[in-house]
């Protein structure tokens, strides 16, 4: 666990299923990045298809006004970052995966990133990050899982196979 600055009471209320599947807080509370930034591995920016570019948020593509806040806009942004839709959450070496959540109004609500061990990592808005065993345990707070997307892990980001040193007897 890192720090003690997040109100666990809030998490217990917002995500009642978390307790039973297990979760671990993995960062301090911060407003400096959001779930989308975290899902694509950039923890120094807040990504948003804000209603106006003049707000100053980061978004990798030109916003399409008619779909601001809609899940199609997020899909397009992630596609720009190299993600393609996929149909499984199975861990695939050489790929990183994200899951997108939507609410009934078709607005994207959240994205989680898959960890190497198959668990998921979530940045909870202006709160902290936490890892969780299943995608469903953060529903319905984040709505429902809409789709999965994956991209090839950049060569530099792939962890090398561990080197085992065997000393001579």
């Amino acid at each position, binding site marked *: 666990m890192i720090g003690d600055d997040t109100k666990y009471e809030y998490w217990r209320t917002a995500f009642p299923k978390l307790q039973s599947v297990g979760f671990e807080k993995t960062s301090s509370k911060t407003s400096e990045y959001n779930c989308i930034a975290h899902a694509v591995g950039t923890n120094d920016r807040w990504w948003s298809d804000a209603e106006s570019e003049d707000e100053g948020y*980061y978004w990798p593509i030109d916003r399409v006004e008619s779909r601001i806040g809609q899940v199609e806009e997020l899909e397009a942004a992630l596609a720009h970052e190299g993600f393609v839709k996929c149909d499984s959450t199975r861990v695939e070496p050489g790929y990183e995966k994200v899951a997108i959540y939507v609410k009934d109004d078709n607005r994207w609500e959240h994205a989680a990133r898959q960890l190497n061990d198959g668990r998921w990592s979530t940045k909870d808005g202006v709160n902290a990050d936490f890892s969780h065993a299943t995608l469903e345990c953060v529903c319905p707070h984040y709505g429902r899982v809409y789709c999965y997307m994956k991209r090839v892990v950049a060569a530099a980001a792939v962890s090398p196979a561990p080197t085992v040193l065997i000393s001579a007897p």
Partner: protein
Amino acid sequence: MIADLPITSKVYLSNRPYSASSDGVRSFASYCQTSFGPAMLEMRNPRDLEWYLIVQSKFCIYHTATSAATTRTFHPTEEIARRFRSLADEWYRDRPRGDLHRMCEHPAYQQVIDLGWDVVPYVIEELNRKPEHWFRALARITGAKNVVPEESRGKLPEMAAAWVTWWNSRQ
């Protein structure tokens, strides 16, 4: 007299002696420039004839020229400061933790926007103290364009610094 007002005050003016026409507002601007030094006059919403006058001495004057214009009343901005503090604390405490759109839809955030130009100095002060998501409010109230440079987009401390710089450059 306007000259007797505390340094931070909000002023509502009646249609007299300044008419609701742009000429009337410009006369008023001219009067303020004479009294307080260089001033910037902005027409915020031509349809509603809302005008904002920002005088260099950080003396903010707000003029709403409408058919239902009131007599002159003065509201010390300590009131705005208190109101902003209360709304900001409520927003920090109760805002949805999800995406930005939902956070900014919170009633307390919307009420900050409704305070208009008068609240801008306090939002800027807040950004100076703690970079937070006040950028939508600032963009909506001020209509300012391209405040945050491309390389700083999304980086909260740099976004906050850009808005503070923008504000200071207007003073």
